[in-house]
């Protein structure tokens, strides 16, 4: 059984592509055949974050329009045979994608035996974002602990519940909250909304929190999903997120201030 998982947020710049890259790399790492699709037509970036920008020959739009086969357009990840990337087109506009066309590609990916199809949504609530979530079975709603991001997440939740295929059929998309750029120190100081306040406001269960971390920028500079930056907090957070998504029980981490020992205090980090 294939699962379609959409990574969405409404607001831009909150970590959708970072999350899509690490989430799909994490699923593949655990042995699941996974494909991650960039839905941001015209502003493709997933290829850069995944480090395969020089290997893009055909893209998602080419496949939807029948100009290339899916096999030609799928890029196999350099480090993981279970992971494939379908890049967005950089030259077309969002109208190049159609509901039927996207549906055909997803069906074909299912036939090819992919277990997970991860859809990296563009920002906004327009056509591109709606197409990215239309076929979703589950959704990761990426949110920063900040007023505009929470409001936009609420909007996109409304769209998931009314405009998705699942909703049209009377069912519902399973929603998960992924909090990014979470900073427990600032929460403790009363300068940042706490995770449980955001959960209460949005009414969605927390899948995991990713702490604010310099490793995220470092990994994107290098074109590597941050989950592969083993030993970093961000990687550990994404590993937890993948494990919980797959049904494993793992206690939440990175939600409270880590008590620093004397040595850590003196020598930093």
């Amino acid at each position, binding site marked *: 059984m294939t699962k379609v998982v959409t990574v969405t947020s409404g607001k831009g710049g909150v970590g959708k592509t970072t999350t899509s890259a690490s989430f799909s790399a994490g699923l593949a790492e655990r042995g699941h055949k996974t494909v991650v699709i960039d839905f941001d037509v015209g502003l493709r970036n997933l290829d850069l974050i995944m480090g395969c920008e020089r290997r893009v020959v055909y893209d998602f739009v080419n496949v939807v329009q029948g100009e290339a086969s899916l096999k030609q357009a799928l890029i196999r990840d350099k480090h993981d045979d279970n992971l494939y990337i379908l890049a967005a087109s950089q030259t077309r506009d969002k109208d190049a994608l159609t509901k039927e066309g996207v549906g055909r590609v997803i069906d074909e990916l299912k036939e090819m035996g992919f277990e997970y199809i991860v859809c990296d949504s563009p920002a906004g609530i327009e056509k591109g974002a709606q197409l990215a979530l239309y076929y979703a079975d589950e959704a990761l709603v990426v949110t920063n602990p900040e*007023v505009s991001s929470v409001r936009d997440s609420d909007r996109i939740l409304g769209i998931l519940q009314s405009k998705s295929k699942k909703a049209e059929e*009377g069912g519902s998309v399973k929603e998960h909250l992924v909090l990014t750029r979470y900073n427990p120190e600032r929460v403790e100081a009363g*300068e940042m*909304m706490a995770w449980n306040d955001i959960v209460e*406001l949005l009414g969605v269960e927390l899948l995991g929190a990713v702490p604010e971390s310099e490793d995220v920028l470092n990994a994107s500079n290098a074109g590597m999903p941050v989950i592969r930056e083993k030993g970093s907090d961000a990687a550990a957070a994404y590993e937890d997120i993948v494990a919980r998504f797959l049904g494993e029980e793992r206690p939440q981490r990175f939600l409270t201030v880590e008590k620093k020992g004397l040595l850590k205090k003196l020598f930093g980090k």
Partner: protein
Amino acid sequence: MSILDYLTGRRRKNSAQQAKERLQMVLVHEGARRRGPDFLPQMREEILQVISKYVEIDQEQLQIHLDRSDGYEVLELNVVIPEKRD
């Protein structure tokens, strides 16, 4: 917060609390959360079962919508029953 701020009594109000309160107002007002109660999918299943005891319908023929407008909720149920073939 600097020591100076502290001494002059210019203590910042807890901004996280402000954020939460403002969002609560906004989200209630905008009504963006059109989510139905948790029992809706289960109720749909059960209604389907009851109906299919008497007439033959398929999954797609039953639609449930819950709408909220000022102060009350409307539960809308749409069932298409196919013509009887004798």
